[in-house]
């Protein structure tokens, strides 16, 4: 049989897809359970993917969307271009935002899968956010860094870190000299290499069983299938072009009014294409907010996939039906070295994803989503210090919420931010207090911070924590202090984020949005995370849901009445007549 022309039916495709996904899942499981740092093993801030030898994204397990849609392809291409001969046993370390990586804190291991004849067949990639990457300051999000030199991290544009399955110890030693808490880094590195090696081993076995040509044939037909699914979805969408803006708060080196991102979404059902124009945006800035190419491409795409039938596979095939237009030297485009992309995965990336999904919502009822709450408040900041002579540094996840209202559901509470999609875990207070010299005084949701809507956004979270017997530096880059997550289709904005120092006398001192602050032993850090935006008019919200929110203490009686038009009696039971009247008034006010 000529394997090149074999047409696989839907059952053969389904079988091999199940096996490919199984391999990616196995990689992810290995990484999650063997990493050392909290950010990896508690928060699960990592991703595992399989690419073809032509650098096409094939399988992603359940990864962080901002990590994997685009970027792995560019990274794999960089690996192949910089290393003309790839051998079994090679592994490459990659964190360069100028060559496809998200940002320098995401250390990635790429391993080419080489068959017995020496032919490069697939590439496996495991990407893990580091607790520290050797920046000038103890944080992986250097919001104020003027350029890559000010960041200070070592940059690895697909650098060989294993040969013949042995570590290139020169590279390891360089990392250990630059990265804080080197033992923790070493543990995470081993876990990441281990995950990629597991993927390699499984793919070698699969190739031997199925045949390499047949596998390659499968990948192309799987892409074709995925493309057909995407085409069907787009053809069923209304034709239209919508421009929406979303503004990031002022930060160091931004204009005083902040950074307004403009996204134009063009849905073309006749061509079965969605185009997103991101070129009408400011030039790169002298701070860490600039997007890497990977994030600039992935952010609009994840917003599109958030907005359509979730069963369309995310791979090179469906990606063919999306075109994202970028501009060189643009904050939401392709950065030029030495532009800093230190915080590329979160702040501006969310300001790209959010208007795209909200624009899609404006196209038609049932599409898109509202805006997700902004990141990155001190409750997910990087804490560091020295306790009894021992240094500590790690990112904590003490309460960050912000899910956006969607066409059929309220915002997912623990979404974290648009690019994360809630995949990360939230810390256990006890685990944090055991691992770090911190004491968590409070962690609670904040009433009346949801973005009202027919389906409302998630509430914001309040957290208050302090160092134990030492001082503690908290580094964070909190967007959303001024510009909340907007609603869509008549939905309203969520609550803003904020941060304070709580002095020993209990008074609150407002702190800047982008800072590394030193919290003294007798002080506390107070962090408020942003709420999510609402979808649809709040007065159309099911009154039973409003009533439930009242009883649970999520919204006040006044808010229920003024915004949702829901009136209750003293027993907290629905007053049907008054509610109907109030809602009629609200409905007229809209018209």
């Amino acid at each position, binding site marked *: 049989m000529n394997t090149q022309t074999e047409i696989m039916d839907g059952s053969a495709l*389904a079988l091999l897809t199940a096996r490919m996904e199984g391999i990616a899942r196995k990689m992810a499981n290995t990484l999650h359970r063997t990493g050392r740092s909290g950010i990896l093993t508690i928060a699960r801030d990592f991703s595992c993917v399989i690419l073809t030898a032509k650098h096409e994204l094939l399988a992603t397990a359940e990864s962080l969307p901002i990590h994997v849609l685009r970027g792995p392809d560019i990274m794999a291409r960089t690996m192949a271009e910089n290393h003309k001969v790839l051998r079994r046993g090679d592994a490459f370390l990659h964190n360069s935002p100028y060559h496809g990586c998200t940002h320098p804190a995401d250390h990635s291991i790429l391993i080419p899968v080489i068959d017995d004849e020496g032919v490069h067949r697939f590439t496996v990639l495991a990407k893990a956010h580091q607790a520290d990457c050797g920046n000038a300051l103890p944080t992986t999000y250097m919001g104020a860094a003027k350029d890559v030199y000010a960041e200070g991290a070592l940059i690895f544009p697909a650098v060989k870190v294993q040969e013949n399955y042995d570590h290139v110890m020169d590279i390891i030693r360089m990392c250990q000299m630059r990265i804080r808490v080197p033992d923790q880094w070493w543990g995470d590195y081993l876990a990441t290499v281990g995950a990629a090696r597991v993927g390699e081993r499984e793919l070698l076995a699969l190739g031997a069983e199925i045949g390499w040509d047949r596998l390659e044939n499968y990948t192309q037909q799987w892409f074709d299938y995925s493309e057909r699914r995407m085409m069907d979805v787009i053809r069923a969408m209304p034709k239209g072009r919508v421009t929406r803006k979303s503004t990031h708060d002022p930060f160091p080196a931004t204009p005083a009014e902040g950074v307004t991102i403009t996204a134009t979404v063009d849905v073309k059902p006749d061509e079965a294409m969605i185009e997103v124009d991101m070129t009408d945006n400011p030039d790169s800035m002298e701070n860490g907010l600039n997007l890497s190419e990977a994030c600039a491409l992935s952010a609009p795409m994840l917003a599109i996939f958030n907005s359509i039938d979730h069963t369309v596979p995310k791979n090179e095939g469906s990606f063919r039906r999306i075109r994202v237009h970028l501009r060189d030297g643009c904050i939401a485009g392709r950065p030029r070295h030495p532009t800093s992309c230190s915080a590329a995965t979160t702040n501006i990336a969310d300001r790209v994803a959010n208007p795209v999904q909200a624009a899609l919502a404006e196209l038609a009822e049932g599409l898109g989503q509202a805006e997700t709450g902004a990141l990155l408040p001190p409750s997910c900041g990087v804490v560091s210090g020295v306790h009894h002579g021992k240094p500590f540094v790690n990112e904590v996840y003490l309460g960050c919420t912000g899910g956006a209202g969607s066409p059929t559901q309220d915002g997912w509470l623990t*979404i974290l931010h648009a690019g994360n999609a809630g995949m990360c875990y939230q810390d256990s207070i*006890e685990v944090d207090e055991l691992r770090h010299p911190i004491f968590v005084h409070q962690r609670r949701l904040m009433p009346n911070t949801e973005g009202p809507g027919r389906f409302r956004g998630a509430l914001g979270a309040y957290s208050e924590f302090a160092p134990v017997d030492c001082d503690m530096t908290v580094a964070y880059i909190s967007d959303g202090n001024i510009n909340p997550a907007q609603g869509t289709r008549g939905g309203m904005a969520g609550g803003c984020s904020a941060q304070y120092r709580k002095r020993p006398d209990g008074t609150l001192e407002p702190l800047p949005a982008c800072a590394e602050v030193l919290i003294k032993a007798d002080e506390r850090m107070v962090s408020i995370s942003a709420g999510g935006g609402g979808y649809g008019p709040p007065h159309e919200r099911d009154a039973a849901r409003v009533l439930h929110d009242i009883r649970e203490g999520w919204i006040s009686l006044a808010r229920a009445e003024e915004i949702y038009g829901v009136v209750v009696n003293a027993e907290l039971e629905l007053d049907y007549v008054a509610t109907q009247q109030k809602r009629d008034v609200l409905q007229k006010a809209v018209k």
Partner: protein
Amino acid sequence: MGLRFAVDTGGTFTDLMVSDDDGSLSMHKASTTPKDPVAGVINSLTLAAAASGQSLNAYLSRGELLVHGTTHAINAIVTGSTARTAFLTTGGHPDTLVIREGGRMEPFNFTVAYPEPYVPRELTFEIPERIAVDGSIKTALDEAETIRVLENLKARGVEAIGVCFLWSVINPVHEQRVGELIERILPGIPYTLSHRINPSLREYRRAISTVIDASLKPIMGAYMRGLEDRLRVAGFLGRVLVITSQGGVMDAKDAAEAPVNLINSGPSMAPVAAQAYVAEGRADTLIVGDTGGTTFDVSLVRKGRIPRTRETWLGQPFRSHMTGMPSVDVKSIGAGGGSIAYVDKGGLLHVGPISAGAMPGPVCYGRGGTRPTVTDAALALGFIDPEFFLGGKMTLDREGAIAAIRKDVAEPLGISVEKAAEAIMALATEHMVQAIMDITVHQGIDPSDAIFVAGGGAAGLNCVAIGRRLNCRSVVVTEAAAALAASGALISDLSAHYQAMFHTRSDAFDTHGVNYVLDGLAARCDLFSRTAGIGATASRIEWSCEARYIEQAWEIDIPLRGSRFANALDVKTLEDDFHRLHQDKFAVADPGAPIETVTWNAEIRCRIGSERPGRLKPDTRSASLPSRKVRFLGQDFIDAPVYRFEAITEGMSIVGPAMVESDFTSVVIDQGAKAHRDMMGNLVIDLGDRK
């Protein structure tokens, strides 16, 4: 020895397995009576009494013990009929049950709601108090405020209370005091304290175990009392035990005091049965697959132990709540006889997770189902005899099954009905294989060293295909495979699990501290064996320690080699065992790096049943049944020999392609496979050439 009963209440049937005075087994089935499940239990016993020609009273008076498996607890949760429960939490931390531990599945699927907290915020109360990580009291318990809260609970009609404070597991004094106050102010209201029900790290897991437990106490207390009373009235004077999520049994009255132990008891007995029926030493690993109508449950027996997990969910992962309790590690996926096959718009075949369930069921049941299922595919291939389903109690509509496969699968894919049916079986098999991979290969266990033990009514349809895909040594179908859980229940141990947190590092090992903790656990085990375990023929304690590399976040469970640490060599052994297990599970280790311990566990198991499981009464009918047309994997229809499972004698060898059938299941023996029965009555299938 008197009669021993195992009664397993399932969704449709209540299965009864009776072990007679001579150790021989018999099976009986009654319909489940959802409104009053105990009635179904009594009905099944009435059937058994009738079969033995005795009155129920006379029959039951010969009874020595009765083991009951019930889904009453999980059903109460699913249907929302648990008690109105309040949650008392540390001041400043009211949202532990709301925020949970984060995490999500299917990142692009926004059609699924975030789960409501197990106890509504409306019934959550912050108590001013705080213990620190070292056990010191940071904020003393405000008793006046606590009393005010409790008075309020009374006014609000609360029926149960769960109390979980931060670090109560290090210093329980505040929880204990609140317990005393509850007894004083709300006498008779059931309550649960977190440090008692689940003394482990991570406040969400402890809190969720606590509130689930409290919420079940009224309903499960009533159920257990009702069960015992009605059995006594019917004439049964023996001991009444219930199956736990940990794969053991406990006295019904004890279960009523800690009902959180029952919620995942459904699938916990399959590995116990597999372990008993497949002699030790035949393989390091048994992979146990239990195929029902809608789900496929996989569990393991690993070097004589049944692995446990604390991550058991009430529903889908991340979309529901964890139980937080150690349970038998079972992976469940939506794949079974009722899984529906369809082709999507892009031309891709899907099998499950949507299921036709028990109603309407597969097309061939003729109960109104219109979409083809795995059972329909099996029928189309000849794997199931339409005239001999459930021993001939039900006739199946083969033509209907074929028409549905043609319309929904064959025509959209442009292939024949036979090929379509084969594709459905193959994809269902692959989904099951992937589920098995998740708890074997992905944890470093090589299935090629394993025996696949297939249970459940639909197990035989693809157990050979699964075994081959996993490259297993062999496949075993037990004699009573269709009632694997009930056969496990008859031989399960009376067990109790005790745990304590104690943190130490292997490079600064606190031998004295660890031994103190282990001695405490041993004393509790000893008390158990002298009270509940009295009369047991044997007892043993399984020791383990949850440990990790310094800075790692998740622990792995390391079996201990002894009950104390005598010297540095013992610590070294623990370290070595940890490195080896870590390498095994995750393909990496960091030999030389120190480890830290978190939780110490002792599980006492008292043997109250017989050492060996019983056999069904011999079947004297002919082993040969009429042959029929069957289409085995990758072949055309052939006239295949068919054998009666129960009548196959030891020493007979069956060479595939062939079919082996019992009243409850059909086993497909593909070409190249060979089957025989061993002394336990198992059908052992040698898969032929291995990769």
